[in-house]
């Protein structure tokens, strides 16, 4: 469902260009869970943001196909409505925008794109309550502004809530496990496993094996210096955990 081919991308303009991605290839089929690991600054978040349609990066070579369609020309919102979801490494706080209302708007945009009727506030509230309960989230998070004053772990849980509500075909989760306590990690992993299914693709960007204990990946990739330097099965993650990246980065 996701085909990234020879993706080269940079940020900046003219004489201050930083090349970040140097020929990434990645193929995610329906039903698969991929994990991407790699040293800090290797380009993991950049890759995820480019797939989601972040306007700051320039793609100089290569293409990204989603269900056979080249999505590089699409805006972020269009990609989202086609079923691509990015769980941010650093979710922004948006004071003044109510969390639940925002979710309803996003949900209804998605439904509209699928030719379905918009959910009325009461119906949506029911859907939301159920999803929140599954993630053990306090109802008060509905009343709060998006991520405003949320703890690090609460922000990550909120990302998973958004994912659960939008039910994307492809979820890219950028370090959603970072900053979670042991119990929260289980809950978040539970959320990811609920999404998992034969029609879904999941990409987990992570530094730690512990998430992968709960969400077992089919493939593990190591990204370094803007390239995928090694791909393998779930054992690769265990090796990375034991040996670090030095043996891969030469």
């Amino acid at each position, binding site marked *: 469902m996701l085909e990234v081919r020879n993706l080269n991308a940079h940020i900046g303009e003219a004489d201050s260009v930083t090349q970040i991605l140097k020929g990434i290839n990645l193929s995610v089929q329906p039903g698969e869970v991929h994990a991407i690991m790699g040293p800090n600054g290797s380009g993991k978040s950049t890759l995820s943001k480019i797939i989601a349609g972040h*306007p*700051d990066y320039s793609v100089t070579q290569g293409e990204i196909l989603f269900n056979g369609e080249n999505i590089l020309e699409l805006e972020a*919102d269009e990609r989202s409505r086609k079923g691509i979801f*990015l769980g941010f490494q650093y979710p*922004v706080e948006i004071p*003044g*925008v*109510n969390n639940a209302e925002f979710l309803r708007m*996003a949900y209804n945009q998605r439904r509209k794109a699928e030719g379905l009727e918009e959910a009325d506030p009461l119906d949506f509230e029911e859907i939301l309550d159920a999803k929140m309960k599954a993630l053990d989230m306090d109802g008060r998070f509905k009343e709060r*502004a998006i991520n405003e004053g949320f703890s690090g772990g609460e922000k990550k849980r909120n990302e998973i809530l958004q994912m659960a509500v939008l039910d994307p075909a492809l979820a890219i989760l950028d370090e959603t496990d970072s900053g979670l306590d042991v119990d929260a990690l289980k809950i978040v992993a539970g959320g990811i496993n609920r999404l998992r299914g034969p029609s879904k693709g999941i990409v987990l960007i992570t530094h730690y094996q512990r998430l992968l204990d709960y969400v077992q990946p089919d493939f593990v990739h190591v990204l370094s210096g803007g390239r995928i330097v090694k791909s393998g099965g779930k054992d690769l993650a265990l090796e990375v955990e034991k040996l670090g990246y030095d043996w891969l980065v030469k």
Partner: protein
Amino acid sequence: MTAATIRPRFMREVPAPALTPALEDAIARHMDEGPFALFDIRTAAAAALRRIGLPHSGSEDFSFIRTGELLPHLAPTAVAANPQTARPGTDLPAAPATGAAGTSATATPATGPQSAPVTALSAAEIAPWILPEARDSYAVLVDGVYVPELSRPGEEFHVQTLEAAAPPDSPLPGMHLRFQGLHDAFVTGISALLAAETDPVASIASLFARHPLLVRVPAKRVAASPLLLLHFTTGSGRSDALTVVHAGPQSESRVLIRHVSLARPVSLAATTAPPTLENAHTVALIEDGASLRMVESGAEGSPAETLNFRKLTARLDRNARLQVVAAHTGSRLMRQAFAVDLAGEGAEAEFNGAAVLSGNRQSHNHVLVRHLVPHCVSRQLFKTVAADQSRSSVDGTIIVALDAQQTNANQLINNLMLSDEARADSKPRLMIHADDVKCSHGATSGKLDPAQQFYLESRGLPPAQARGLLTVAFIAEVVAKAGKAGGTPDGEAFRDTLDHALLDSLRNRMPMSAPSGAKVMKTNETQGGKHA
């Protein structure tokens, strides 16, 4: 009781006039009109006006305003002083004319030859503007004139015309010059405030207001519902209003002020008709331990061509509280001015302004906060969204007197610029004479945060909806404070109204699906400015 006997004496008392002969003439005519009970008050306002002079291009306090545009409309002309009694293009049933009850009824404004009856409005016409939280406590003013027949002030507030507080008649002409009995000191206090006024436009409003309104909250009264002041302008050319709000000691009250334009666009004549000048001066006297909250809307349903001037002059005594929230969408020229004296220890004043401007609309704020005694607090928060070629300004001065130690004063101005052609100025000034104070001011101007925008879009919101949401969020902080002014179950209708007025002005530019389950208050078919 003819005024002719008074006028010459009055003229002699006044030093060399700095005003135009036409304006002096208008003042003299107006003083002749009566009611005589207002003589002292008008004399005080006129004296202030002569002392200050009319605003001009060099006026410090009008630095961001094109005074040339304002001046021709500022003084009432002979024509404007006789507003048409019917609006063009209306076929609404006539409401009882004001003052028809005759001169003996003290609560009914007297009509003189110059003060022609105000444009008639029917109860049905005003009904949509009555907020649920003030169903039983509202006062209606039409072109600045209180209309008791359309009002229902309720029990908690004492609402009457200022002149009604004075004896209706008196055998000696000289006796007309003074309010009597208990009111004497009060009127002297109001006169003193008006005489010390430094804003010439406010002086014009209080001088030419035909029947100023007096709103009193008795001592210790805790008013459960707010009083709604409904100011209607009918497109008759001008509206001068003076409202005195007197919050008695230890009282708690809320006053909602809603400005509504019922002017119908006069298709062909519209381009040539003079703009409506809506000029309202509110004087608030807040006594020891009293708390007053005021929420004020912009010019709802107003065509963009109007000139709107608002002034709040307030004096706070010991431990008094004043909270003001004003939200609007600007007009051809809108200016809100706040002048507050913190005159009793422990007093606290808070001003919050929210404006969403598009097209060529303007919004200017002028603030003068004087900390005269120790231990007072003042806060200011102005948030403006400026789109297209709109203009806004905040000109704010905080003065801390020599012995006003332990003062806490701050001012924050945030502008969200949606267009490179929009302009927002700020001129903060701190004049601190005491040494043990906490004062701060800050001004920011910025665009929408791209990271926030990307976040929303990455969840499927189209860019326009994302921008709209962020823009609304920017001013939500201020509008939310209007909600807090409500205490009844319905207490937030005005907040929602303000919210929607601001939203509507954005909607043309940023097609948004109505956010949330926000209840859409149905307003009026003339709602919504016509902007490019």
